[in-house]
């Protein structure tokens, strides 16, 4: 009764490689693999020949050589005696700095504009439409250049702050100066015991989270709601403030002062950073506004109505019903906007901000003539950053997505 017979053993024909679906996919893959490898081999052999004619080799040791150029903004120690690798690191940190600042402000701007665009107020809604369409339809590069021009042309020079009846004055109780060389603001001076203060501040933040989880557990068990926000606010400020005065004011502010031709002391935010930051935030914010609007509109009206029927107040409806569902729609495109912002920060070249493209991909390549190696490292950096951002955000996305069977 054996209905299954052994497959015919010796009846394999060459034509089966093409016509038999069992073998065809392998055939196709082998051919494709050979073609792709041939293409890669062709490109690689071209590189080898071209490098040989130019008398260059493929070598990353230039990273250890003395860089010999200055960088005007650095987050870590750097001088022109440092190595090219150090310069690249300074650039990487500058890129990450502007990308991080941009992501934060773009989210704030975008969420505000997106919500306001849905507001019942006709004029505010139209104003936000103008903002969104204006920024989405004009190249980012133009915005960066325009904002940089505003920062350098329309702001006073440091010498305008001089004298009794100066043309310009510092704002916020004489602490912040907006000049055409950048914004000068007070910087914190870390004295003795300041680390203790920081530790207390961090501990109180941990305390806020602990208190929140305790409050949630209590609510789930007894139904009694605790005042989470007010206690959190108190925990945020009070312990740190008390410790600040008990420890004898360990942290002081270093105010910028006009001396010579320029301000000295304090913290200088360069125009290039500010222009790039503002432009990236406003531009990406316009895209985020549309994402937020689409996300809120995507939540079924019945959900709001059902929440009201259960007796939830409007703000609880928003927090517990609408926003969690909207977030699910909002987060995936939001991730790609963060990626876009990070990649767009390479437009720093337009305003002379020293990001990684300017140090590693610009001056280092020009000085050493290592185009191939430099561009490879630069591309690798952006690739890794993109993958890390999208990986991290996808983890978050997985935690808020719809739990399905």
């Amino acid at each position, binding site marked *: 009764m054996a209905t299954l017979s052994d497959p015919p053993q010796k009846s394999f024909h060459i034509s089966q490689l093409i016509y038999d679906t069992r073998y065809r996919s392998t055939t196709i893959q082998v051919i494709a693999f050979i073609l792709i490898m041939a293409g890669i081999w062709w490109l690689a052999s071209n590189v080898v020949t071209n490098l040989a004619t130019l008398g260059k080799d493929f070598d990353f040791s230039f990273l250890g050589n003395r860089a010999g150029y200055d960088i005007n903004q650095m987050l870590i120690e750097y001088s022109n005696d440092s190595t090219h690798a150090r310069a690249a690191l300074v650039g990487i940190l500058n890129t990450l700095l502007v990308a991080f600042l941009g992501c934060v402000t773009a989210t704030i701007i975008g969420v505000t504009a997106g919500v306001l665009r849905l*507001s019942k*107020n006709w004029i505010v809604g139209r104003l936000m439409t103008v903002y969104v369409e204006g920024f989405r339809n004009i190249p980012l590069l133009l915005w960066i250049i*325009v904002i940089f021009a505003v920062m350098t042309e329309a702001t006073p020079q440091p010498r305008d702050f001089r004298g009794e009846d100066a043309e310009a004055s510092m704002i916020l109780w004489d602490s912040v100066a907006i000049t055409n060389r950048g914004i000068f603001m007070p910087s914190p001076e870390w004295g003795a015991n300041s680390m203790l203060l920081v530790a207390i501040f961090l501990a109180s933040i941990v305390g806020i989270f602990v208190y929140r989880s305790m409050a949630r557990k209590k609510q789930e068990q007894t139904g009694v709601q605790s005042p989470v926000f007010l206690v959190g606010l108190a925990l945020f400020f009070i312990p740190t403030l008390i410790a600040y005065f008990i420890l004898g004011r360990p942290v002081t502010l270093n105010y910028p002062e006009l001396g010579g031709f320029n301000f000295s002391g304090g913290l200088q935010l360069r125009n290039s950073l500010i222009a790039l930051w503002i432009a990236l935030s406003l531009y990406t914010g316009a895209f985020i506004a549309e994402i937020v609007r689409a996300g809120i509109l995507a939540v079924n009206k019945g959900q709001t109505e059902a929440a009201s029927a259960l007796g939830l107040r409007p703000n609880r409806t928003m927090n517990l019903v609408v926003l969690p569902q909207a977030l699910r729609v909002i987060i995936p495109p939001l991730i790609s906007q963060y990626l876009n912002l990070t990649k767009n920060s390479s437009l720093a070249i337009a305003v002379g901000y020293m990001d990684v493209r300017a140090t590693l991909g610009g001056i280092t390549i020009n000085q050493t003539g290592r185009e191939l190696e430099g561009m490879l490292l630069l591309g690798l950096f*952006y690739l890794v950053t993109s993958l890390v951002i999208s990986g991290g955000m996808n983890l978050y996305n997985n935690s808020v997505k719809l739990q399905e069977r």
Partner: protein
Amino acid sequence: MSEIHSETSTHTAYVRTEMLPEQAPPVTAAGPAKWVRENLFSSVGNGIMTILALYVIYYILSHTLGWVFMGIWDAGSLSECREIRDGYIAEGRWAEHTEVACWAVLSDRWHQLLFGFYPPEFYWRPILALVIFGVALAPVLFDNVNRKMLILTLLAPFICYFLLWGGSIWGPLVVAFGFVIGFACIKYGALPLGALLSTLAAIVLPLIFWLFLVGPITGVLNSIAPIGIEAVDSDNFGGFLLAFVIGAAGIILSMPLGVVLALGRQSDLFIINKFSVIFIEVIRGVPLIVWLFTASLLLNYFLPPSANFDLMLRVIIMVTLFSSAYIAEVIRGGLAALPRGQYEGADSLGLNYWQAMQLIILPQALKISIPGIVSSFIGLFKDTTLVVFVGLSDPIGFSNLIRATTDWNGIYWELFIFIGLCFFICCFGMSRYSQYLERKLATGHR
């Protein structure tokens, strides 16, 4: 009796026998007053926001309207503009310290911002190419256009290339013939060779033709019949012409590549799938500006030493690869949105892979992804401004060149506003078109 009578009479007094005419609602519940009440002052917070918004609008307009509309259009240089303005102020026609725009820079240099250094006697060629491009796009964008126009759509890239760069007519013709070979392989080779071999032939034969035969054949044809128009060098392209050429070339060339990559990413074949994924992720993970620098610094390393591409061609190659990765993702979304039954239906009809794709899957997937494709075209068009960093003169590059002359040194806003306005009109038009498509497609699905 009288009581009853009086009772009924009081009753009848309340019974109305005729309808009252409709009355207009109270003033506060109708017309503009109601609208203002509901839309602007529905609550205290809303009222504050309205007043704040009105103040912002007033502040912006009061500072810009005069500057824009009193602007001077007729002058040869910025200093001449200022003289005219000072003259008006001295005459007392304008108040002290009036600042006005100097639009004269546009009437003086508009042709450079639009065409770059393209020879003025040939301005008709890019304009004609733009018209042909628009006509060729019509059957793709609107479905009530005659289908026969699609032939023009296929020919348009070659016609536009010939018009823009000029030179001999045989080059574009012979290159176009390579596509004919590929098409013939798919169309007539499927029966005798089978689907796989004909597909392979359709890829390999045109490549061999372009690599080894185009040069000699063009040379022979040129020596027999030298037909052509005067050639224009790539260096002469600039301004919005450059942005349009790079943008259009990028999108046209990247469409087929994007479709192939999307199919590769959806494919079950392991090697093809993985290579598509790697290509797409690597391209998308790195900013366009880095790719452009790669094109200008490195692309010559990857090509045979004999090949000498000019910078514009290299940039177009890079932009094409870049946008094909993005288009592939858009089309992949369209492919994923198709119900499984469409694939199964194609299989049950006995269609082979390419027939199924061409007749059933791709038309629907592309239809779904048109809005996404349009928005990636908008992005690509805006990104053409980045070519300024590798030394091409796009509109922003030309604004720098114009500012570098002594006549117009120190002029900013007028140029920025003009460039921004041009980009805004193009991109806003495209986004409105894609919204129109979305609405049209949405009705088709419900």
